[in-house]
């Protein structure tokens, strides 16, 4: 039996909302973008409907960091800081990553709130986000400003970033499904047993914070 005490808040309400905004906009952008990539789908591009949807998706996609910063500024800062800081356990974790890929989370080097793989995922995603947004804006609004050659390089950058993001997303979905993690992004909660197995350093932090009652609300970040 699981009591409320067995559950730990891993994702705040704002984090979940931002995650799903990113998901919906990313898939809308990918699907409408594929129209221009796969020749058999190109018929869907005529009439400009896929372009309109792509631009609606783009606005939502651009709004993701803004919403994150507005609704959970501290969580946003933590995530960016965390994603670019790797400690020794993280490096040792990477060495044993193939085991994690094959579904073994036990006896891996201890991890914090986000594991080394998630850090790398976030870090690459953030960089690619910047590339795809800047090149996308140039393709959308900068047509008359950039030369034919630079326009071509923007297409290159946009597609490279898109491919990297799609590959990351396939990986993300893979781990989410292997480790049954989708529920946590819906409810926000994970079990204590899970946290103990996959994120022991984070659990230790939470327990230490819990012994100082005034700072309990920091759990989520």
């Amino acid at each position, binding site marked *: 039996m*699981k009591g409320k005490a067995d*559950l*730990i808040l891993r994702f705040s309400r704002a984090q979940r909302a931002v995650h799903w905004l990113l998901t919906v906009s990313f898939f809308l952008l990918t699907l409408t973008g594929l*129209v*221009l*990539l796969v*020749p058999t789908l*190109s*018929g869907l*591009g*005529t*009439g*400009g409907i*896929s*372009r309109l949807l792509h631009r609606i998706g783009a606005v939502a996609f651009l709004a993701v960091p803004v919403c994150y910063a507005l609704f959970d500024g501290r969580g946003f800062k933590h995530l960016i800081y965390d994603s670019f800081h790797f400690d020794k356990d993280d490096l040792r974790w990477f060495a044993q990553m193939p085991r994690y*890929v*094959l*579904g*073994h*989370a*036990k006896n891996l080097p201890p991890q914090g709130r986000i594991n080394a793989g998630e850090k790398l995922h976030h870090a690459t995603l953030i960089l690619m986000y910047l590339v795809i947004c800047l090149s996308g804006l140039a393709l959308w609004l900068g*047509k008359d400003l950039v030369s*034919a*050659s*630079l*326009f*071509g*390089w923007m*297409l*290159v950058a946009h*597609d*490279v970033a*898109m*491919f990297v993001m*799609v*590959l990351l997303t*396939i*990986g993300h*979905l*893979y781990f989410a*499904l*292997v*480790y*049954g*993690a*989708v*529920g*946590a992004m819906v*409810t*926000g*909660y*994970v*079990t204590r*047993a*899970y946290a*103990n*197995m996959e994120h022991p350093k984070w659990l230790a932090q939470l327990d230490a914070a819990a012994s100082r009652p005034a700072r309990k609300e920091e759990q989520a970040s």
Partner: protein
Amino acid sequence: MTAQAILQDMSLCMECQGCRVACQMQNGLAPDQVYIRFRFHEQGSYPKVTHHIGRFTCLHCTEAACIKVCPTGAVYKGETALTHFDGAKCSGCGYCAEACPFQIPQVKADKALRCTGCEQLTENGKSPACVATCMAGALSFGSADEMLQKAEKRVAALKKQHPNAQVYSPAGVGGTHLIWVLRDSPTVYGLPTAPELPVSLGVWKDAVQPAGKLAMAGTLLLAGLGFVIARRNHLRETHEGGAKHEG
């Protein structure tokens, strides 16, 4: 069919714009839609200045940037080596307008306005509508070799009066299948002196996209196979330890 070309002799053009109208009729265009545009340019310097309106339309590049970038396959090469355009396939993205080294295509109301190379006519051995209507003999149509020889002969004659006269079919785009005879240097007409197919477009279409598609398909396949093994391992591990993910 051997490669064909249109010869456009700017020294013979009397600037009547009849070709524009014939083109509109042939392609069923509204009066404000044109595939052939006329641009003002000046020749000479004060006090001997002449004003001209020159004809500008698709140059039918051998290595065509517009074909490279078109995501829907609306622009393509015919057997004549002319560039054709299927308006029904055009999504109006404007990539061709952006990539064209000569800035020829225009996009209006979500459709590119660009020369079709009169596919129905030229693929059946006939002249395009603009050539057929030209009264001044400034336009001709025939095999690319023949048109090039004709252009060179004409330039040789023009050189006596116009030392800068030249044939314009730039090598940077693999030569063009609209061959110009110019009385003066290309810049006078607002034409680029060394246009080329941007390297970036080749990188995009021939390297990034095929490699990316391959990586995407490969990763999906591996993830599918790996999932079956990994999911089983995970369930076994959590069953032993009693840890469950979902809250």
